[in-house]
């Protein structure tokens, strides 16, 4: 399945745009997504950390991903 990922902050710079799409297996989870992204964009590994949000909630590595989910990459936050 093709997954669209929203990007913000430095992730947007690394991807070169506000979103990217990756191809994942149908039973993919957050770990699989991070692996696929890091393969395509190795600079992600230089970040202090980053999280994946699924439908506006922080997701855990084992959480499943579905084709209609809203997925976003959350690099280290710095609000305030």
């Amino acid at each position, binding site marked *: 399945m093709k997954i669209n990922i*929203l990007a*913000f*902050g*430095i992730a*947007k*710079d690394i991807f070169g745009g506000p979103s990217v799409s990756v191809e994942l297996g149908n039973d993919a989870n957050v770990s699989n997504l991070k692996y696929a992204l890091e393969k395509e964009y190795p600079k992600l590994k*230089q*970040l*202090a950390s980053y999280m994946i*949000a699924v439908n*506006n*909630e*922080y997701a855990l590595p084992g959480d499943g991903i579905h084709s209609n989910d809203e997925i*976003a990459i*959350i*690099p*280290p*936050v*710095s*609000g*305030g």
Partner: protein
Amino acid sequence: MQTQIKISNQPLDIQTCIDWVMSPESGGIDVFIGTVRNTTKGKAVLRLEFETYEKMAVTEMDKIAAQAGEKWPVQKLIVHHRTGILKVGEAAVVIAVSAVHRAAAFEACRYMIDTLKQTVPIWKKEVFEDGGVWVAAHP
């Protein structure tokens, strides 16, 4: 507890936030204002550029506000966060908390800003004369 959470690309109105949390039952209001500093590690900062994942940022701020309300007897709590390009001295965030006694207002306000900085999907880029840096992105 009543809460109001807002993200705006317009200058924040500090007095509006304070007025909103005032109530006859309150004995104290605590206010935190985060502002744009003119230097970082000795380098002159020209401006800050804020970006938000707005829907999730509001959801996360709602969660923190609810947690603060569980921890302390807060009456009203407001958070207004700015997005877009900010000049030195401008307010990036205003948090105001009212409570019957001051201790709850102080502690809830501090909890709000400390936790906001850790969990809410908002990012700032510090722009110097020689380019910009996303704050906290790299170790």
